[in-house]
């Protein structure tokens, strides 16, 4: 089956109020072309589940987000995410703050269609204070250990970005870390994969060790070819993080006017327009 689609076709599958899981980690291999398209859309009131980076900051700044479920939001080389910080200070976004391992346990529970999975992380910390809905469970065996019952984080949609995919939805990462992209897909009802290049299956398989084929087609509903679609986050070995542009993004949080200028220059057009503006900025900087 050919699952290839356009950016617009992918974003059309998302509705107001949905829970959207976003793969990658921090400012690494984020499906930014899809994120930018959501920022341009009329979507609203989304809940984001993410090992958060500029995906969270950009969508929060664009007013698309009701709640963020995460353990952190960071730009890696720049530790604090300025748009997320601003939104938290101004009370513009709700937060479900979890330990990183709890977030994985919640995705694993959803992936396995379990109501929860037990985990030690969270015990005795303020994660339980700020998430009063969380419950503990006592081991039914002789040890009697009391553990956090991390509830399933079931996603309406998962968005991930891979280096390569075939039209059927088999997909490959060529960098050092798969992050949790396979888990995001298993935890979601609709699974949308953007990638640097769509290639025939034989070429995909020849492009790296078999272990790099992280997603198989049963885990994927749609494939979108978005060259430089993780920009400005890293997508090694295709490209590293664009640190210059990331700094420009950070500066856009300085004021409403700075954001408005950033938005009109980089986001209000389409993806091709974005990349043209990125190239123009890089050319001007040289």
């Amino acid at each position, binding site marked *: 089956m050919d699952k290839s689609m356009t950016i617009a076709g992918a974003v059309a599958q998302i509705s107001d109020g949905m829970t959207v899981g976003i793969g990658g980690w921090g400012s690494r291999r984020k499906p930014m072309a899809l994120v930018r398209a959501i920022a341009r859309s009329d979507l609203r009131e989304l809940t984001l589940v993410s090992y958060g980076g500029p995906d969270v900051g950009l969508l929060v700044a664009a007013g698309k987000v009701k709640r963020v479920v995460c353990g952190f939001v960071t730009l890696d080389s720049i530790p604090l995410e300025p748009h997320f910080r601003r939104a938290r200070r101004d*009370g513009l976004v709700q937060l479900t703050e*979890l330990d990183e391992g709890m977030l994985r346990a919640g995705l694993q529970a959803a992936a396995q269609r379990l109501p929860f999975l037990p985990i030690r992380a969270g015990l005795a*910390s303020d994660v339980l204070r700020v998430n009063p809905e969380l419950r*503990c469970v006592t081991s039914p065996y002789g040890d009697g250990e009391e553990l956090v019952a991390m509830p399933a984080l079931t996603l309406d949609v998962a968005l991930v970005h891979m280096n390569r995919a075939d039209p059927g939805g088999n997909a490959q990462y060529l960098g050092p870390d*798969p992050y949790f992209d396979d888990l995001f897909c298993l935890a979601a009802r609709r699974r949308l994969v953007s990638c640097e290049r769509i290639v025939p299956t034989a070429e995909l398989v020849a492009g790296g060790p078999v272990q790099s084929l992280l997603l198989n087609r049963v885990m994927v509903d749609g494939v979108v070819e978005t060259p430089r679609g993780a920009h400005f986050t890293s997508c090694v070995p295709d490209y590293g993080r664009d640190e210059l542009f990331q700094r420009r993004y950070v500066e856009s949080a300085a004021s409403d006017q700075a954001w408005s200028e950033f938005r009109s220059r980089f986001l209000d057009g389409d993806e091709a327009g974005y990349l043209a503006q990125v190239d123009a900025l890089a050319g001007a900087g040289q």
Partner: protein
Amino acid sequence: MSAPTRAEVCVAACADAWAGDGEILASPMGLIPTLGARLARLTTAPDLLLTDGEAYLLAESAAPPDTAPVEGWLPFGRVFDLLANGRRHVMMGASQIDGFGNQNISCIGDWSRPRSQLLGVRGGPGNTVNHATSYWVREHSPRVFVPRVDMVCGVGNDRAASGPASARRYHDLRLVISNLAVLDFAAPGGLMRLRSVHPGVCAGDVVAQTGFALAVPGDVPQTRVPGEEELRLIREVLDPAGRRDAEVSSGG
């Protein structure tokens, strides 16, 4: 060789946190702890696993962030597995830390609408109830060493003691190393105690820069200074560019 700088004393003190840890993963956060872990691997803890901060395990202890030869693969998912398995000693930073070692890196102010949003809890809750944890504080001040943290990320000794048994089963707070001193939790009740002061610092300086009642023994020793070979490793092998001195000023 010239006398050790304050930064070099801190690197050696961080290295001592991993001394004798055996074959476990060292997870240092920040430059000084990273230099400390790599120094420990070259001296007192030769079996330590070191990472490049991304997905590779390093076969040799070299200057960060250069990628040394690799001996293994440890993506984030494997780190989560290994931390729950317990074979890890993390050295995290702290935006706030209290007398029981509760740590905050999440936000400053009321959590529901913080004055300043920081990183988030990250792995602090899970790290502290699963394996050995130490902290590095680059500027020892009453703003960091506070009576009460605004958000408990890393679990302190009082929280572990009053929580369920499963929270303290593997809870193991070791050391806090700052630009002024080395502290441990050997005071009664698991409270923070001044263990040693860095050369040029007196106990009164540390007390003045600590926002809670710090346990101070009658006779506080000086922090061990790195020897000739350790200084050579720090200066020539691990940090030839001298990045450590931008992290910690010489401060007398």
